């Protein structure tokens, strides 16, 4: 099995920078902007996006993470996974714009779980979704607002996202 790289380190950086600009452009009013990454790699991406936004418009981004393990609809069908930390900014999320951040958008089930999990923490004014890769094959009526790269793939293929914070290297690859 060979993995074919589709995004390299500079591609990823470019994609995130573009998403950051799009997020700021789409932002209406001057409400708070909370980036919540879905562990594990979504958390790293949320931190990167938050930093870029902060460079462009200092003080506007708040960063956290949102674990969805206990809200997954396949919880009872697979081996139990330990939940990862959820970190919500001290001011909470009420009235803010929350940007959920994940590495890959696929069936949409993780995002559905994230929306459920989010509801337990408060009521944002709006929720947006940013992903590094959208590989299609949605099983739920969910779409991303900000996409780093659309990557049409077959269900038999696997998409790997590697990030330096977690894997020591930045790369997106696809394998048969």
């Amino acid at each position: 099995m060979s993995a074919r790289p589709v995004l390299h380190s500079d591609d990823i950086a470019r994609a995130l920078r573009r998403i950051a600009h799009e997020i700021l452009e789409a932002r209406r009013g001057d409400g708070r902007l909370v980036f919540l990454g879905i562990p594990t790699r979504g958390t790293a991406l949320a931190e990167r996006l938050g930093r870029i936004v902060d460079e462009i418009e200092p003080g506007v981004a708040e960063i956290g993470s949102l674990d969805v393990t206990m809200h997954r609809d396949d919880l009872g069908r697979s081996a139990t996974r330990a939940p990862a930390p959820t970190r919500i900014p001290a001011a909470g999320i009420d009235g803010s714009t929350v940007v959920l951040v994940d590495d890959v958008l696929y069936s949409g089930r993780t995002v559905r779980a994230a929306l459920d999990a989010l509801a337990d923490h408060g009521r944002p004014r709006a929720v947006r979704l940013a992903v590094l890769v959208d590989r299609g094959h949605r099983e739920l009526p969910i779409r991303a607002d900000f996409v780093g790269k659309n990557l049409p793939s077959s269900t038999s293929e696997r998409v790997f996202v590697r990030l330096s914070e977690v894997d020591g290297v930045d790369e997106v690859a696809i394998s048969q």
Partner: protein
Amino acid sequence: MKHLLTTRDLDREAAVRILDVAEEMAATADREVKKLPALRGKTVVNLFFEDSTRTRLSFESAAKRLSADVITFSAKGSSVSKGESLKDTAQTLVAMGADAIVVRHPASGAAHRLAHAGWIDASIVNAGDGTHEHPTQALLDAFTLRRRIHGADARGRALDGTRVVIVGDILHSRVARSNVWLLATLGAEVHLVAPRTLQPAGIDEWPVTVHALLDDALATEPHAVMMLRIQRERMVDAYFPSEREYGRMWGLTAERFAALPADTMVMHPGPMNRGLEIASVAADSTRSTVLEQVTNGVSIRMAVLYLLVAGVEEERA
């Protein structure tokens, strides 16, 4: 992990994992919505053959916070104590759809039997069996220690180098047994203190240092002193001569408490006999973890129920 029967079954990785999950569970206590959907559609039965309101409420609250359906069955005084066998009771509960049975029983090994006799297939959580073990109590004690020592930085860590002195009726204490195995697994240095009459056979083979006298153990400047409840009936059975003598030799008196290092924690699984094994000044001090232990109990029990019941059993490679 299918059952939690004894802390001896936990290796370091599994023990740290439970404590870490409990950290996440504890974090939900501060949220707007405290309930998690993890055990939606699952049924947890609390099967209590022995009165223990504290432990029962702790497990009930844990299961409810995870959205499980909870059935509490206080078997004391029911058909069970009138001769219905443990096997029949368990099979009845499984027929009612129990995914997990939390069992408290006055006989050592009752939980083990439910798990391994081949009568039923549910997950079993030992909520205290006779004078054998009380694993969730030990886990919450370890959790309390770890939080006090490592604070917000506790995740992923064990208790290496932590010195814990456990004092009292080791012979009859399920809390002591569970703590000995768990604390040793987590790398803590465990000291046990009891009169010879209250030391179990074979204690020399345990991964602990045994002291007959409390002052010898306190001289090690422990990070925590755990005082076990002493039952007054033991005096009648000649384990010690009088309360006064027990208190003088093995109680955490005001003088002993004052002589401890300033940051030594004082732990007690409750309920306390003030003035016998523990002086009020020690029990009520800021170094006492007694109330934290109660709060942490719910988080630990949520973690255990979550890990045992939420998913399907892991395939062993």
